[in-house]
């Protein structure tokens, strides 16, 4: 294996997260000799499955999949390499008063369930779902284009802009207007155009805050809502899924595809520096001093590492350094993983059932989430957080020993910067807040917890390297999207250093397990070859 380091490679990809793996696989597919280096012992970056407690497997950082691009699955034959996405068909919103809102695959049942809270909402729900489906389709186009540079007069850029303008101005007026609103409104205001019942509003608006340091009433969150609707599994939009074997299953499948295309993968290999010669990237130096040379170096890490740590900032134009320094990370989420001795019993819906195989969302109202955000705004974790929870072992029995379960809780808000104390002091208190909140809805929870893993934004940063623990490698705000992601002039996957590229979630189209930045970056790199 280590013999590989003596060969000269065409490309070195830094970081074995899903985007790095996709990037490496596409470049190898185009005939390049690719070496991929991963700091940790496992591949996948933030999409890994690890056996934290004996017999219990966790998708440690991430939890669901929906955004992964179908063209990548096809191009890389990921299905043959073991990728299997199990549908996550339902969302249950338990309420403090013992009622619940359940939405599953059955259209008529959904209507009845929503109508228990508001008949108007039940009627509007169908309209809403249809509109969002059209919107996701309209915006899907964006996921496949390189952001044009709006200030350039280069014919290529102008063509790109024109094509984009044609695409969007070609939409029917109704859809165009909805799109403008999605790009600008808060998820709360956007949803209030359709709905009135709190459990539905709360749960839908939660998709607008995932991964961001914003509340449902903050303008800009409707875009994040849309971002989460762009998910497509086997061509069906807004289909959340759970990868067989956890999100690590995706990484393993891409890694397997990459290997079969000839990519050399070295894990437990930390890159300390990108070697720059004559203003061009020439290779990498590892933490142990080894140097590996290649024609092209690609970083799948976030801009802080890509521009300020892996290279000497003095080799970059000062305004690029300034842009990267002000790039907003703002980690806002934590993760709590629980190993359970038995199946959890919900107060609102006891016993086994389909609802345990779906997502369970602690989001009783918009105000509930907004108040959780208020706590975080001033530097504290939410006392009563928004929690999106799944029980992977209900869907994939291999995740836990027979009869036992794993519970994967995505928690917001947990700000990276605390106003008082440190995360090392507050980690368990944060875990307690999550378990206490859940126990209100799952009375037997505290009795069945065997192990608990609490991951704060600081832990996410320490383990995965994601700056400030931001799962999207930077806030998905309008001023950091598209031709501004990660910054003006850096949005086309290139860097000011020749032969040095970026391919992580900090590039267009942003975070989530999409694989799209990795793929688009590979296409740009090949154009320059």
């Amino acid at each position, binding site marked *: 294996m280590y013999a590989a380091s003596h060969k000269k490679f065409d490309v070195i990809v830094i970081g074995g997260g899903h985007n790095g793996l996709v990037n490496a696989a596409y470049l190898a597919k185009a005939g390049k000799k690719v070496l991929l280096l991963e700091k940790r012992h496992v591949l996948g970056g933030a999409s890994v499955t690890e056996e934290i407690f004996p017999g219990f497997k966790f998708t440690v950082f991430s939890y669901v999949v929906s955004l992964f691009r179908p063209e990548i699955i096809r191009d890389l034959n990921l299905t043959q390499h073991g990728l299997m996405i199990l549908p996550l068909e339902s969302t249950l919103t338990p309420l403090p008063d013992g009622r619940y809102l359940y939405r599953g695959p059955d259209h008529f049942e959904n209507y009845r369930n929503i109508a228990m809270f508001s008949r108007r909402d039940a009627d509007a729900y169908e309209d809403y779902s249809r509109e969002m489906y059209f919107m996701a389709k309209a915006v899907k186009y964006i996921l496949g284009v390189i952001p044009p540079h709006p200030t350039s007069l280069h014919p290529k850029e102008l063509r790109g802009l024109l094509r984009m303008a044609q695409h969007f*101005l070609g939409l029917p007026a109704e859809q165009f207007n909805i799109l403008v609103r999605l*790009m600008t409104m808060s998820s709360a205001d956007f949803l209030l155009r359709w709905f009135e019942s709190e459990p539905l509003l709360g749960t839908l608006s939660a998709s607008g805050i995932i991964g961001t340091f914003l509340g449902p009433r903050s303008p800009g969150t409707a875009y994040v809502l849309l971002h989460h609707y762009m998910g497509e599994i086997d061509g069906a939009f807004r289909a959340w899924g759970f990868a067989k074997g956890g999100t690590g299953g995706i990484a393993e499948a891409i890694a397997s595809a990459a290997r079969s295309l000839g990519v050399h993968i070295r894990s437990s290999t930390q890159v300390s520096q990108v070697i720059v010669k004559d203003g061009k990237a020439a290779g990498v130096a590892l933490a142990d001093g080894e140097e590996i040379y290649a024609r092209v170096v690609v970083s799948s890490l976030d801009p802080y590492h890509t521009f300020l740590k892996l290279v000497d900032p003095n080799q970059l134009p000062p305004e690029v350094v300034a842009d990267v320094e002000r790039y907003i990370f703002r980690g806002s989420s934590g993760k709590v993983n629980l190993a359970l001795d038995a199946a959890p019993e919900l107060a609102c819906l006891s016993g086994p059932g389909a609802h345990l195989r779906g997502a369970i969302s602690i989001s009783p109202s918009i105000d509930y989430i907004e108040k959780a955000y208020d706590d975080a*705004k001033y530097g504290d974790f939410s006392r009563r957080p928004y929690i999106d929870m799944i029980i992977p072992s209900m869907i994939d029995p291999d995740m836990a020993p027979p009869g036992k379960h794993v519970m994967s809780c995505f928690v917001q808000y947990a700000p990276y910067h605390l106003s008082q104390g440190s995360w090392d002091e507050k980690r368990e208190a944060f875990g307690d807040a999550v378990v206490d909140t859940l126990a209100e809805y799952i009375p037997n929870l505290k009795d069945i917890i065997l192990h608990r893993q609490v991951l704060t934004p600081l832990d996410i940063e320490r383990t995965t390297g994601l700056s400030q623990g931001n799962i999207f490698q930077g806030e998905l*705000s309008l001023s950091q999207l598209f031709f501004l992601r990660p910054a003006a002039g850096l949005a086309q996957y290139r860097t000011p250093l020749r032969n040095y590229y970026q391919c992580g979630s900090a590039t267009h189209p942003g975070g989530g397990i999409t694989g799209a930045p990795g793929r688009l970056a590979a296409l740009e790199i090949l154009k320059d070859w």
Partner: protein
Amino acid sequence: MPNEFDAIIIGGGHNGLVCAAFLARASRRVLVLERRPVLGGAAAGEEVFPGFKVDTGASDAGLFNPRIVKDLNLENYGLRWLESPAVLFAPQLEAPGLTLWRDPERTRGEISRLSEKDAARYPGFIRQVSRFADILSGMLTLTPPSLPQWELKELLPWARAALMLKSLGEREMMEFIRLLPMPVADYLDEWFESPRLKAALAAGGVTGNFLGPRASGSALMLLYQAAHSGGAGFRASRFVQGGMGALIEALASAARRHGAEMRTGSQVARILLEDGGAVGVELTSGEQLRASAIASNANPVHTLFGLVGAANLEVRVVREVKNIRLRATLARVNLALDGLPEFTGAGHNGSHERLGGHILIAPDPDYIERAYDQAKYGEFSTQPLLDLTIPTINDPYLAPPGANLMCINAYYAPYKLNDGGWEGNKDKLLETVVAALAQYAPDLPAKITHIQVITPLELDAEYGLTGGDIYHGQMGLDQLLMMRPIPGYGRYRMPVENLHLCGAGAHPGGGVTGMPGYNAAREILKAGVTS
């Protein structure tokens, strides 16, 4: 029977008067109908307390477009500007307050007491904001294209704005684009470290919008408030000699001079429709007046639902109008004072020059954000953001000798309160505001002789600001340009033939700018108003 008028303007607010004046100047026969006994709408001067001329609504005309002043020769009709050397004074409890002067050099000295680093960056910041605000103000006089189904001729006027943008150079142009959706708090964090300075500047980003400084879009409002600000750079501020009422009088005189007629105390009950087009108005008295064009200075919701009637509109339009986001943000407290209160850290060498502009109670950006937090859940802020003026400092004749006037905008005040209505909470609001202010001006309570409190409910009932929204619809990114007031009707023409919108609900929006009225007049003339 030929119509008596070419155009009837519903509402004599400043935009209605601007629209009337420009139509009259183009030789159209114009009638302005105002429901209240005085002209001016939310920019009126009224004798609320005996011997006082009170600006009951806006008191600062800094945003008023200079082009209108020039085209209508308003200075010939008695308009005189008063500019205080201090644009904004933010008192502090234990230390001298921070004053932002019209002269950036002087401000820089002031800031250096808080942070040398901030002082050094201030001129660059002012340069950027002024430059961006200039670009923006170039867009305020243009009619938005009707995207997505645009016509080339609608886009041509915007080519100039695009060129101006281009002339910024690549980096600054991208900065401008990046800035538009940003929260003002993030923008200021990029420039400065002093919370006090950041709060003083951030307040301009939240005026009139029901959002805190961490909300996306508030940086754009900072630029909007900085249009035509001249050298001061960050917030246009200019007062009118004789109070806001004098601007209204100048506008009305100019309009009359060109032949426009004004009737106060005349409330329009409905817009008369024939074959789906507006042909006139009916007053509450039953009188009917006909004209070939109607322009409404009322907000779009009242115009379309109250005056046209939802039954006369398409379902799609009804749905859009219903969804216009109207939000109350502020309550107004006007106080008559026998003497001038002493603010901590204002300096007392007989000079009150620090107090001549806006006085701001907001020690740091989080103070503003927390004030907003409370309002989100239906309470008025118990630690309110206060933005006040003492108009008598610049113009003593607004009050009897020795007396002073204080006009306070208190943020945030939602339209609907959780614990009962505004009726039972008016006194509590007043107490809260006076107590918050008395921390900085301990002798204030003893000097109060008269009080007027205008809650969002009264903004609605008395001034016709539906939902208490002073902007006739929130100026969020989703309600600007071709989306304002509703998509498809961003070019001043309403979904009813011959009906136009000339108030703040149309592009570019709220504030005493005169721009919606000015732009609407141009579009009405283009549409061809004939007798």
